[in-house]
C-alpha cells in the first residue's frame, strides 16, 4: 500500500513538472520562432537564384563540391523556413576547374543569367582576380568562402599599409593570408621552435602571396630563410627540390600552394632525405593531402580558416542537416563558410524585400549589393558581418598537424585587432 502511494505521488509530481516545463518552453519558442511559421501558407512566387563558381571537377573538386553542396543546402533551408516570404531560392552552379580563364567565362554567364542576384565563389584567389571586374561592372554581389589573398579586398599595396578597396561587389567570409601567413610564422618560430625554413610556392596568386607573407614575418622574428624555390602546379617529380632542401640544413619547409602538389612534395621531401615538417596554408588542409603524402605526411602542419566545427555550437545544425541531405561528398574545409556566404546573400534579399514594402524589388541585384555590406547574423562559423573592405569581421584560424594519418587541431588563434 505504501509503495503504491509513493508511486502515485511521484507520477503526479512528474506530471506537474512536465506540464510546467512544457508551458514555459512553449511560450519561449512561440515568441522566438521568427515569422517562418506564420508565413507558411504564402508559397514562394519569385524565383531568386544564387550563383556558384567553384572547381566542381578536377584535382580540387573535393573542396569545390563541398562549396556547391553547402550553398544548395542554404537555399533549401531558406525555402523550407519560408525565410523570405514570396521568394523561392535556387542555385546555378558553374565549374571553373580552378582555371582563371574558365572562371571569367563563368562570371560572364552568371551575369547574363537574369535570375542570379549574388554569387558564392570561387575557391581560388587567382580565379577571383579574373571574375571581380565582371561582377562589379554588372553590380552583381560576389561572396567568396575561400579566397585568402589580401590583394582581392585591400588592393596591391596593402603590404605598405595602403588599403584600397578594389571592387564594391566583392565580399568574403574567409579570413585573409595576412592573418594566416603571419600566424603560421609566429607558430613555427615561437611554438615549434624552428629557425631555418625553406620556402616553396606554386607561383599562383594564393600560393606565392601566402609564402611571401609567411617568409617576411618569419625573418622579422629572427628566423632564417635558408632557401626558396618554386614548382609548377601539376608537377610530379620534386626530387631535385628535395635534394636542395636536404642540403640546405632546413629544419622546416613552408609551402604556399594546394594539396594536389603539396602531398607528393611532402612525400618526396622525406624520401629525399629532408625529414622535416612541411607547413602550408588552408590550401593543403584536406584529407587528400594526407593520402597523397603516402604515409610521409606525419607531423606536417597547416593553418586553416576558422576553428574546428566541433567547437562551434552554431555549426551543429549545419552538420546534421548536411548529413541528412545525403550529399555524397563531404562539406570539406569551406562548407561552413560557403553556407554563411550563401546565407549572407539570403539575408540581403530579405532586407531588400522588407525595405520595399514586402515586395521583391525590380532592381533586386542592386539592392542586394547595397544590403550585403550591412548584414549581420550568427552563422555556421560564428558572427557574420563584413568590414569596409568587404572582408569578414570574424577572423579565427587554427593550426593543424597530421597525427596518426589525420589532421588534428594544435592551436587556434583569434584576431581582435
Amino acid at each position, binding site marked *: 500500500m505504501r509503495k503504491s502511494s509513493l508511486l502515485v505521488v511521484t507520477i503526479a509530481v512528474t506530471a506537474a513538472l512536465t506540464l510546467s516545463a512544457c508551458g514555459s518552453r512553449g511560450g519561449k519558442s512561440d515568441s522566438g520562432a521568427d515569422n517562418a511559421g506564420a508565413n507558411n501558407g504564402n508559397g514562394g512566387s519569385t524565383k531568386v537564384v544564387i550563383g556558384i563558381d567553384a572547381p566542381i571537377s578536377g584535382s580540387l573538386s573535393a573542396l569545390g563540391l563541398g562549396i556547391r553542396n553547402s550553398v544548395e543546402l542554404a537555399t533549401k533551408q531558406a525555402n523550407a523556413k519560408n525565410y523570405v516570404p514570396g521568394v523561392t531560392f535556387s542555385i546555378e552552379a558553374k565549374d571553373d576547374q580552378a582555371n582563371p580563364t574558365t572562371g571569367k567565362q563563368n562570371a560572364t554567364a552568371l551575369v547574363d543569367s537574369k535570375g542570379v542576384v549574388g554569387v558564392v565563389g570561387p575557391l581560388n584567389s587567382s580565379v577571383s582576380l579574373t571574375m571581380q571586374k565582371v561582377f562589379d561592372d554588372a553590380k552583381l554581389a560576389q561572396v567568396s568562402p575561400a579566397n585568402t589573398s589580401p590583394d582581392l579586398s585591400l588592393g596591391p599595396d596593402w603590404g605598405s599599409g595602403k588599403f584600397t578597396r578594389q571592387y564594391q561587389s566583392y565580399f568574403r567570409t574567409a579570413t585573409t593570408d595576412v592573418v594566416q601567413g603571419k600566424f603560421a610564422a609566429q607558430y613555427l618560430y615561437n611554438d615549434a621552435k624552428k629557425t631555418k625554413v625553406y620556402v616553396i610556392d606554386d607561383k599562383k596568386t594564393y600560393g606565392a602571396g601566402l609564402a611571401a607573407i609567411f617568409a617576411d614575418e618569419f625573418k622579422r622574428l629572427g628566423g632564417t630563410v635558408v632557401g626558396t624555390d618554386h614548382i609548377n602546379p601539376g608537377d610530379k617529380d620534386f626530387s631535385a627540390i628535395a635534394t636542395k632542401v636536404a642540403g640546405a640544413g632546413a629544419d622546416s619547409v613552408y609551402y604556399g600552394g594546394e594539396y594536389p602538389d603539396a602531398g607528393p612534395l611532402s612525400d618526396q621531401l622525406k624520401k629525399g632525405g629532408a625529414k622535416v615538417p612541411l607547413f602550408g596554408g588552408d590550401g593543403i588542409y584536406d584529407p587528400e593531402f594526407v593520402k597523397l603524402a603516402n604515409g610521409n605526411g606525419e607531423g606536417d602542419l597547416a593553418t586553416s580558416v576558422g576553428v574546428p566545427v566541433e567547437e562551434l*555550437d552554431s555549426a551543429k545544425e549545419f552538420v546534421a542537416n548536411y548529413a541528412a541531405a545525403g550529399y555524397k561528398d563531404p562539406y570539406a574545409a569551406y562548407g561552413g563558410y560557403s553556407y554563411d556566404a550563401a546565407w549572407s546573400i539570403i539575408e540581403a534579399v530579405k532586407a531588400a524585400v522588407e525595405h520595399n514594402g514586402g515586395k521583391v524589388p525590380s532592381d533586386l541585384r542592386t539592392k542586394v549589393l547595397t544590403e550585403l555590406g550591412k548584414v549581420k547574423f550568427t552563422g555556421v562559423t560564428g558572427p557574420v558581418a563584413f568590414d569596409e573592405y568587404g572582408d569578414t569581421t570574424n577572423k579565427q584560424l587554427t593550426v593543424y598537424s597530421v597525427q596518426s594519418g589525420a589532421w588534428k587541431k594544435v592551436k587556434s*588563434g583569434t584576431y581582435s585587432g
Partner: protein
Amino acid sequence: MAGERAPRSGPGGFLGPVEPGEGTWAPLVLRPAPPPERPPRLLSRRQKYLLASFLLLLVLALTVLRAANYPEQAANSPPPQAVPFPSQAARFTYVGPVPGGPETFALELAVHNTGPGPLDVLEVRQGYRGLTVLVPGWLPRTVPPGGTVSLRVDLRVTDCSGAPADATFPFLDVTLRNTRAMETVSQILGDSYARDLSAALHSACDHTDNRTPATSTETPDKPVR
C-alpha cells in the same frame, strides 16, 4: 498411616477455579491495545493503479506532443543554453599601454565574456624567448557572464636577442576555462598592440648590445594557478 487426602469436589468442598468446559479452553495470551481506528480509504488499491496508469499515460502523451512540436530541439544534442567553448565565449580587446617599470611594457587587456556561465582566465603567456609575462594581482580571474574584466599584463624584457622588435603579428596565449572545457587560445591583438610593443622593445633594446640581455634572465614567469 496418615496420607494427604485428595481434595473433595462437589458440594460441601471448596470452590476451585471455574474450569472451562470441554473444548472451550484457550491459552492465555497478552492482547495488544486495539489499533486506532483508520480513516476510511479514499481510493482502493485498484483505483490507485488506475490513477497511476492515467498519469503515466498523460506524461507520455505530453512528451510525445512536445517532441512532435519541436522536432529540431528533440533531435539536437546541445541544450538551448549550452555553454560555448571558452574560445567562443571570450572577446579580447587591447585597451592600450599603461605605465610600467624599466624594461617592462605594460598593457591593459579587456576580457569580455559573452557566454551564459562564468569564465576563468587561468594563464597569460607569449612566445618570445626574450620576454617574460607577469599579471599583477592574481590569476585565475573570473569573468562573470556578460561581464568584462580588465587585466594588466606586464611584458618584461629579459633578453633583447630573443625579443624581436619588428614583428608585425605578436599575440598573447591565454588559457581559459569554463564548465565546458579548458583551452589555450592565441589572442592576436592587432596593429595597435604590435606598434606599441615594437616601440617598447626598440626603446628597451636599441641602446644596448642587441645580443646582450637587458636584464637578468633569472626572473621566472609568475606562477598563475
